[in-house]
């Protein structure tokens, strides 16, 4: 490294980044903690000269707030359903892709395609696919007049049409649609990372296994998965972090009402709660919720890291 007499130069180069980070990253951290600890904080009241009590009441209120608990439930449910599902599916696809030669590049590109889409725009496509046109609220006989392609497809297998996302739809129908969409949306990144991991595994391990007449299933469980475990751990951790921040997929399908017509807010998530509180000028609550979200992500990441350390070290 080079001369120390031009120290100021380094700081000069760094100054734009540092100034912006101070304003838009460091100050928010401090301010969020401050706001979360001022009871019922709002900027409007603060400019009005209101003196806030200091304490953890915001946290207590958030955690006892049915709306927040609903958001927490939705978020956790989506995480628990989508993370394993998308990881396993991505692993299967990546392993299969890695085992073929012709068309490998082509299929790899196809599977990466959903990554370069606008998740809200494609959410609207999913919404259209599950949508039921001409549905009158409460009249289940009207369900027959569906143009939603999904109902037509499952109809081929003898399944009755389901009201997936329209007014009067059931919670689990909504969740199913979200899970399908989130998994679809999450696959490309995971496939890319896992395939990259698979391709960097030394081929000799597979040759050695072949010479020793190892059955395919055993190669997969005893060699591929353990050797890929750092990548799997990485994919799972990022999936959890993304899962806890789930928001725009729901906007894509249900609009910013965060629920089917007639039951707005039913599918709201933690991030949605933060924005709603912000829009309602309840910055104290929003901050407390954001810190709770951070705490959850932090704890889950640490657990993941701990587990993967135990399972993957070699």
């Amino acid at each position, binding site marked *: 490294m080079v001369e120390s007499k031009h120290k100021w130069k380094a700081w000069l180069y760094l100054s734009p980044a540092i100034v912006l980070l101070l304003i838009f990253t460091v100050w928010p951290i401090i301010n969020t903690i401050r706001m979360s600890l001022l009871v019922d904080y709002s900027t409007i009241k603060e400019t009005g000269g209101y003196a806030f009590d200091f304490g953890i009441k915001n946290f207590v209120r958030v955690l006892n707030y049915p709306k927040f608990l609903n958001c927490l439930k939705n978020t956790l449910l989506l995480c628990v359903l989508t993370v394993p599902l998308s990881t396993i599916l991505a692993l299967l696809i990546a392993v299969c892709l890695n085992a073929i030669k012709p068309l490998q590049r082509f299929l790899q590109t196809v599977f990466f395609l959903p990554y370069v889409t606008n998740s809200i725009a494609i959410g609207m496509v999913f919404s259209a696919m599950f949508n039921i046109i001409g549905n009158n609220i409460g009249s289940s006989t009207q369900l027959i007049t569906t143009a939603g392609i999904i109902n037509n497809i499952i109809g081929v297998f003898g399944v009755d049409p389901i009201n997936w996302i329209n007014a009067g739809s059931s919670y689990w129908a909504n969740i199913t649609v979200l899970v399908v969409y989130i998994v679809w949306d999450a696959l490309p990144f995971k496939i890319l990372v896992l395939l990259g991991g698979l391709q960097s595994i030394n081929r000799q391990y597979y040759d050695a296994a072949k*010479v020793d007449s190892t059955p395919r299933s055993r190669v997969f469980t005893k*060699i591929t998965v353990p050797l890929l475990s750092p990548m799997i751990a990485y994919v799972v951790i990022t999936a959890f972090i993304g899962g806890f921040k789930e928001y725009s997929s729901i906007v894509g399908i249900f609009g910013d009402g965060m629920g089917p017509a007639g039951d707005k807010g039913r599918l709201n998530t933690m991030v949605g709660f933060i924005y709603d509180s912000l829009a309602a000028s309840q910055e104290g609550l929003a901050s407390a919720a954001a810190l709770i979200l951070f705490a959850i992500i932090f704890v889950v990441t640490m657990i993941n890291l701990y587990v993967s350390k135990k399972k993957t070290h*070699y």
Partner: protein
Amino acid sequence: MKVELRNLTKIFPSRNKKSGEEVIAVNDFTFTIPDGKLIGLLGPSGCGKSTTLYMISGLQKPTSGQIFFGEDDVTELSAENRGIGLVFQNYALYPHMTVKQNILFPLQNLKGADKLPKAEMLQRAYEAAKLVQIDELMDRKPGELSGGQQQRVAIARALVKMPKVLLLDEPLSNLDARLRLQTREEIRRIQKETGITTIFVTHDQEEAMSISDMIVVMKLGVVQQTGRPQEVYDDPTNLFVAKFLGTPPINVFAGEVKSEKLYIGGVAVLDVPGVEDREVTVGIRPEGFVPDANGPLVCKLNSVEVMGRDVSVVSTHASSLNPIVRSIVNSDYRISSEETVRYSLKSHKVFLFDRRDETRIRF
């Protein structure tokens, strides 16, 4: 188990699609490896020796030709069904498994009638480990072992299922010089004890010569010569083989045969009965020089390196095709002159080769 290769050929399609040139890695290889012997496949890199090994293992399919194990044609059989043991150049030990798990792995794959009870698997794993003297390290992971230890684990893993044929791909190339000497003796010992037909690939001629029952010298996919190491060393079929075997390497001169006498630099140095008059390339083994005050071959002396038992004399000669001429002589020898050294030659250490196609001209 006897292994027989019949007209084995491997052609790789060209890497560069446009030029369309194919690479002939192995060309028409025919050879029979007798049961229970240790065979060294020897040659410079790119000579097709590893490809040959991988074809025997079943990991690569020959383009044409056949492979027999005993009387069975196994050419179409994939690696899973050949029952061979293979030690990879980088050992390919599973990094996430302990030594014990690595050695047990092939046994756990056995199915049906071959399936073993757990206790017997363990017993066999420990036997194999003992054979290569790593039974103390069973609970370590490969990352915690030295290169030599990893190499032994790899051999144990290959031996534990009692293969019909054991294949070793450059087994010593990742070891340091001392370990290499020790390990090659080890391989010899293990092979003797188990009696398994063993084929190993190496680019190190000393390694191959020292432990093999037979060696196969290859160049650019073509077998040059096969035979017992000493035979090949003493009677090379062409200049390539003569140059490739032996340390220090053979000395090469430009020479000429006139009326059954070999001339080097215009001086007759040796009688070569039965050879027509022609220009030749002359190979002289370092031990083929005899210091002789009246010897016909006069070289300019450079230096004398005392190596204990022997003395290595480094000199130059105008007709030498190498920068230096190196001879190995008895340490009783004392240099008399400071400037030149004179040699007479042992005729069985001198080989003549055709100038153009480099084949041997016998006399």
